[in-house]
């Protein structure tokens, strides 16, 4: 709507001709798709979602007054309706996104409700993991048959829920191979979305869920030498960050670059955690020994992760964009000697703090050089977070802490104000 208003304003002011106005409108229509169709798809999915959730709630109500046979028949009705609507969609409306997404979403929830109702009717022994696994396996083909991005998103949420319902929190955890097979099964569809609808909102949601699922799934490899997982997580997050900054990848993300955000914030978050003495005390005490590290599963996983991240770094070097990923893109490599040092000396914690300070300063500098407010604020946030963390370690008076907070806040304000002024000055010139 704002585009329409702007075009109308420019037409009335005589800035653009009617022909140019038509060209602009046609360009945005072909680029972004018809906004009315998109709205219909969204309402269709929301409507199907609400109906599906309503069915789940009714399931939870328990129908005491009905006989077992009637309850069993009723349990199958949503499933049959869902299958019927999907069949109608495939045979009569195969090209309608709204129909495909709505019917697939409804069927997705109908599958869950049918299995849950049968379990409730017969008071079957409960096993949430196997219930979710069965549900997701039955729902997975819907993603490909109906090309439903909504079901793909629910599927991703479902398999992650399945993962954490298992023995994910046990120590040592056992590798959940089923989860990885389920995760890999959705990749062809993700690739299809990436290639055919790169600017779609559904694709954008996938860009968030896929890396988050990978981070969660990586935790299943913590089998005995858990401290080595720090190297693994930093390598994975480093790979996300480097991938997000590649020339041909950067332009694909419509608004927020999820790989960049997860990679950068995740890396900084882990380093902030490692800036405390207590963590290194534990690493020092849990020294597993060189042989145990080399023979561990975590080490086996670390090798491909470090290689992938290194290869992405090499691609940046080839594209001559190596400076743009400094310093966050290098953290996964710099951390390795620090991690080794941490088993022998407390100097590791100081190095991590210096690393965080360096990240903050370099990121601020990059933000200033590229006139990018987001990058500038990321740098400021890193330094502010580091200062906050040190408050827990150092014994400072409340007054002094208050003064430092005020100074950091003023620094934030001044830096952003100065950046905006610079941007406005450049625009005028």
């Amino acid at each position, binding site marked *: 709507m704002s585009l329409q208003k702007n075009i109308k304003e420019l037409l009335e002011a005589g800035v653009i001709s009617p022909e140019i106005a038509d060209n602009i409108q046609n360009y945005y229509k072909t680029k972004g798709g018809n906004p009315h169709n998109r709205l219909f798809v969204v309402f269709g999915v929301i409507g199907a979602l609400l109906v599906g959730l309503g069915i*789940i709630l009714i*399931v*939870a*109500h*328990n*129908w*005491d007054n009905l006989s077992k046979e009637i309850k*069993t028949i009723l*349990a*199958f009705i949503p*499933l049959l309706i869902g*299958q019927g609507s*999907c*069949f109608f969609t*495939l*045979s009569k409306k*195969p090209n309608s996104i709204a129909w495909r997404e709505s019917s697939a979403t409804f069927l997705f929830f109908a*599958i*869950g409700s*049918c*299995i*849950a*109702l*049968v*379990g*409730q009717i*017969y*008071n*079957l*022994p*409960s096993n*949430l993991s196997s*219930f979710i696994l*069965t549900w997701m396996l*039955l729902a997975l*083909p*819907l993603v*490909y*048959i109906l*090309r439903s991005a909504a079901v793909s998103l629910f599927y991703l949420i479902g398999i992650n829920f399945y993962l954490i319902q298992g023995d994910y929190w046990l120590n040592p955890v056992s590798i959940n191979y089923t989860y990885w097979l389920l995760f890999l099964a959705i990749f062809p569809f993700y690739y*299809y979305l990436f290639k055919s609808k790169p600017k779609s909102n559904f694709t954008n949601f996938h860009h968030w869920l896929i890396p988050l699922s990978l981070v969660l799934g990586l935790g299943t490899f913590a089998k005995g030498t858990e401290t080595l997982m720090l190297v693994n997580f930093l390598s994975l997050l480093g790979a996300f960050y480097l991938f997000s900054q590649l020339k041909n990848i950067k332009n694909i993300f419509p608004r927020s670059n999820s790989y960049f955000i997860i990679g950068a914030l995740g890396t900084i978050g882990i380093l902030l955690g490692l800036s405390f003495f207590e963590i290194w005390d534990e690493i020092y005490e849990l020294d597993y020994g060189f042989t145990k590290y080399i023979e561990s599963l975590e080490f086996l996983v670390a090798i491909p992760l470090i290689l992938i991240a290194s290869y992405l770094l090499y691609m940046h070097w080839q594209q001559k964009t190596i400076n743009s990923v400094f310093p966050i893109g290098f953290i996964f490599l710099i951390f390795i000697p620090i991690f080794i040092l941490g088993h022998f000396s407390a100097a590791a914690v100081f190095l991590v703090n210096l690393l965080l300070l360096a990240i903050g300063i370099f990121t601020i500098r990059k933000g200033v050089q590229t006139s990018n407010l987001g990058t500038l604020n990321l740098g400021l946030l890193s330094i502010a977070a580091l200062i906050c963390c040190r408050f827990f370690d150092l014994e400072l008076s409340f007054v002094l802490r208050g003064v430092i907070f005020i100074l950091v806040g003023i620094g934030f304000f001044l830096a952003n104000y100065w950046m905006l002024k610079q941007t406005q000055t450049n625009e005028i010139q």
Partner: protein
Amino acid sequence: MKFNKYILPAFAILVFVQLYIPLKMVLDSEKVLKGQELKFKTAPIDPTDPFRGKYIVLSFEENEAIVPAFQKWRKGELAYLGFTSDTDGFAIIDTVYSFKPSSTTDFLEVPVTRVLRVPNNDNKQKIRFNYPFNRYYMEESKAYAAEVFYRNSIRDSTKVTYAVVSINNGKAILSDVMCNGVSLKDLVDVN
């Protein structure tokens, strides 16, 4: 993704599988219900399963057995229990097998949760297990009242609460929870 002519046949297969799985659950459960019916005395707690509604958790008196020590039971192993009835008609464990019996289908498969020594008797072990039929789903408005009624009835020695369970070929289905011969659902309605 162009495989249009395969989509409808693929969907047909999917429909079949989606119907088959819950139908098999129903048929397997019905088969178990035709098996040996037993009454298990209960000794409860009121949680919610977000997908299946309110239920009361049941625990049972007859949840351990004395076995010969040479069998060397371990936690996590599967035990196959055969039952008989006591003078009051309640289930008591008659036999404990370490393998699936082939001569009968009236047995229940349970995982061993604890293995304990028997005091002053090195030739015996005590094994404890959790029964799979420990959830009884109720209409959510009744579940809490049922749980309270249940707790009170356990304390009242004039009331006997038990679960009606059918077992068949290692599996079990819980049909009802009774108090002095009346279903808990009906007792909650009356009260």
